């Protein structure tokens, strides 16, 4: 497995090998699926839409409905306006969405298609039925990475729809970051525990975890409604979880509707969840509900009880910046040693943040933004770890180096559970901690000689 990978790294400036990221449009598609009655539309070649739908389907094992402008060579020469206009008519007549969320691709961006002009033209020509909406986001594939596309699409919804009526509501806005439907449901449960009215954008719960009923619901019941997105402009505060995925939309709300915002880490792990809960408590001015304190206590209890399997264990972590930052802190707090920490995404802030988190525990850690899994593999060859935490793509390194892998992040293509059981919050932390502990215990069992094969662990 991966036999061609040498241990010694050679400086590469042009070739990416085994990327740990993909391009913007898939993030825009995921975000748009979290809006009720929304059809994501990919303005580009058919392949983009096909690839993004396929990969999201592989991760969620759910239908992913999205349409495409089906560019041909002709549209690439003359521009994609005719294709998008035709697409808009076709979509409203055939699929009757409440809202179409157009995102661009490297193709339409390179040509320079002006989406607002095309939407305006459709509006003028009566191609947009009464009460229906089209929004867009520019998501050139050659800028940023998949989380940038998510961020741009969420910002796009805000930009087109959020408006202040001049009356502040009691509600807050919550931008949840690129997390699972299960996580989105869990975040709502936390907010509800404080009796705090909130609008969460996007919300893929009850969309990408749809029940089997014998029928396919083209627009499942979940998702943030257009009316809710409009009302975000009146909220009293915005909590944005994860700077990479959520900050832009929060800033936009501040600019556009003067809603103050604060950016927090994704509430993954103990400390980050503590900060999230504290922020909510500060907003409500009420005490933290006992049930959340109990959940917290359980997480602390398990980490303490099982510390012998965690303390000092070397771990390699990769994935999207928001996830990796929270996860690295969580591992550090369990006294694990994150020795290789990488994101495929971009941002110097990632390296600075990880450095700060590991300053006193693993000052020599390998830390890299815009890395790839080939690099990660070479790091692991150079310094072996006890555990890897990352996406499904790590399974090849895991097999090559015989190191256990806890699957975390996007995408997970070869296991189920992530979309149903949260990893945010204390209970999510408990799930993550038990996955980590189990992986280490399984390995100890597998490698133990008969005389040391323990009954009780």
């Amino acid at each position: 497995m991966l036999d061609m990978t040498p241990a010694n790294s050679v400086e590469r400036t042009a070739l990416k090998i085994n990327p740990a990221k993909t391009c913007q449009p898939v993030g825009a598609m995921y975000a748009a699926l979290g809006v009720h009655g929304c059809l994501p539309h990919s303005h580009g070649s058919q392949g983009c839409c096909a690839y993004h739908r396929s990969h999201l389907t592989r991760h969620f094992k759910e239908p992913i409905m999205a349409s495409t402008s089906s560019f041909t060579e002709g549209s690439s020469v003359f521009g994609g306006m005719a294709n998008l206009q035709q697409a808009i008519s076709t979509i409203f007549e055939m699929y009757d969405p409440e809202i179409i969320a157009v995102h661009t691709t490297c193709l339409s961006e390179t040509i320079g298609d002006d989406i607002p002009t095309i939407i305006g033209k459709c509006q003028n020509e009566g191609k947009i039925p009464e009460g229906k909406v089209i929004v867009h986001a520019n998501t050139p594939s050659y800028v940023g990475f998949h989380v940038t596309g998510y961020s741009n699409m969420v910002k796009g919804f805000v930009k087109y729809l959020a408006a202040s009526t001049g009356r502040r509501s009691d509600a807050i806005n919550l931008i949840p970051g690129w997390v699972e439907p299960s996580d989105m449901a869990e975040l709502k449960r936390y907010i509800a525990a404080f009796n705090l009215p909130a609008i969460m954008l996007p919300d893929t719960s009850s969309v990408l975890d749809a029940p089997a009923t014998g029928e396919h619901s083209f627009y499942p019941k979940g998702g943030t409604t257009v009316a809710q997105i409009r009302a975000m402009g009146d909220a009293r505060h915005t909590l944005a979880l994860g700077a990479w995925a959520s900050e832009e939309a929060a800033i936009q709300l501040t600019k556009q509707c003067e809603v103050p915002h604060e950016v927090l880490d994704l509430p993954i792990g103990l400390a980050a969840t503590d900060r999230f809960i504290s922020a909510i408590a500060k907003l409500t001015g009420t005490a933290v509900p006992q049930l959340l304190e109990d959940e917290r206590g359980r997480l602390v209890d398990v980490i303490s009880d099982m510390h012998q399997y965690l303390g000092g264990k070397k771990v390699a972590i990769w994935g999207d910046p928001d996830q990796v930052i929270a996860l690295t802190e969580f591992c550090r707090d369990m006294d694990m040693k994150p020795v290789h920490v990488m994101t495929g995404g971009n941002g110097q802030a990632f390296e600075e943040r990880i450095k700060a988190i590991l300053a006193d525990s693993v000052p020599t850690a390998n830390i890299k933004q815009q890395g790839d899994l080939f690099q990660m593999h070479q790091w692991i060859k150079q310094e072996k770890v006890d555990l890897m935490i990352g996406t499904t793509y790590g399974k090849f390194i895991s097999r090559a180096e015989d190191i256990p892998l806890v699957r975390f992040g996007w995408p997970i293509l070869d296991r189920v559970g992530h979309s149903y059981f949260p990893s945010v919050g204390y209970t999510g932390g408990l799930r993550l901690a038990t996955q980590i502990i189990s992986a280490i215990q399984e390995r100890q069992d597998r490698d133990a000689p008969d005389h040391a094969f323990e009954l009780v662990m």
Partner: protein
Amino acid sequence: MPDTIPSAETVRDELIKAYPSKVGKKRAKHILVNDPAAPPEIEANVRTIPGIITQRGCCYAGCKGVVLGPIKDIVHIVHGPVGCSFYAWMSRRNQAATGDGVQNYINYAFTTDMQDEDIVFGGEKKLAQAVREAYQTFKPKAIDIFSTCPVGLIGDDVHAVARQMKEELGINVFGFSCEGYKGVSQSAGHHIANNGLFKNVVGEQDKVIDHPFTINILGEYNIGGDAFEIERILEKCGIKLVSTFSGNVKYDDIATSHNAKLNVVMCHRSINYMAEMMEKKFGIPWFKVNFIGADATAKSLRKIAQYFGDQALIAKVEAVIAEELDAIKAIRAEVSCRLAGKKAMLFVGGSRAHHYQDLFSDIGMETVTAGYEFAHRDDYESRRVIPSIKVDADSRNIEEIHVDPDPARYAPRKTAEEKAAMEKAGFAWSDYDGMMAQMKKGTLVIDDISHLEMEKLIAIYKPDIFCSGIKDKYVVEKMGVPCKQLHSYDYGGPYAGFKGAANFYREIDRMISKRIWKMIVPPWKKTAAPAV
């Protein structure tokens, strides 16, 4: 299946009626009621109407994803933003055997990860450097380069870079202009891939292969290990496989493939160009085979034996067929007894929607409607219609290579007289009769099916199984109908050959008889069942 199914004509009208009239008029040409004796003319290989939710992908997917990607020891560099490389990374399940010191890059993805400055200032330098870095790190036999959408638009000349790097590094480096927007589907990419492989690799290494029965299999990509099973059977028969295009192969296999005595074609859509070009240049005849389905496999093996005309080989092939069919007789009978008469629908690819009808017919299942995602008219109506296919603007730009006989190496494996005599005796050359000739009268044939049509068909026919791909899989299953992915095999397989057929019988039996289908409706919502 419901007791009464409306006629195919009624269903057709209903599908067309669901569209706005302009769209419906276009779709009407793609939705036909079949007559195997006189296949009606179907519209195929034309643009999908923008906004329609289609199964189709792009040209790049057909070139890199389908045809070139399975070659294990070439470093495949995708020149473009990261996504195109990322999504075509192992997602097609082309298996490749390792060992014997073979370089294997199947588990790797290589990309230039173009950034905005590359789009603005051009990406040729970065591409050249990427090729250099790949060579320095891996020292591969060959490197190929795939163009994605922006590459063509900004005018990067990947072929010039390839030539320059070939000279600099001394290994074969070649490029493909397979930008996603070319053509109307993956199909354009197949053609571009065929052209590039033919020009740059086929014929590179002359070699005397000391064996009386040498063949290439064209259009077999080793999804789920299909090629392994075919290799096993051929070896057992004493037939020597020189190269597969392109499942489980090495660069050298393809470079020596022109030394074989026969080409057989599995996936007609993706590789028929290669068969034609190799015949013209080297004199290798070809015919269509199908190793999907036990009976189809037997038939294909017999035809290969008949081609060589060697009595010992013919006898050996008969013995292998008898032994292999016998080994799967019990499971076939057992599954047939449960599934005979059940109804299947197949909407996938450019060959599989036809090939898999043979597997279903092995166990007595019937295909009620079928269609391809990206095929051409000949794949439906037979190669006889090729001269009458109109070449539209989208296909005109895909290069047709003019091929002349190789002055030194053209050697017809059968003389014109031999071919004519065999043809007279019923042996078909360069043949493909297409899907329609095999499907029953009154079945529906639908090209480039849309999501809307799929949902309607399922609601009307309530098939016992629907065969499609990942994008449709969970839509269909949400409707309570099992959906077998025929691109990825649902991560199972092999389904080719005899052992593969047995796998498929068991798999379809499992899927259709799943207990959970009966438990979708909670008990409190079920009306009381009549007392038995």
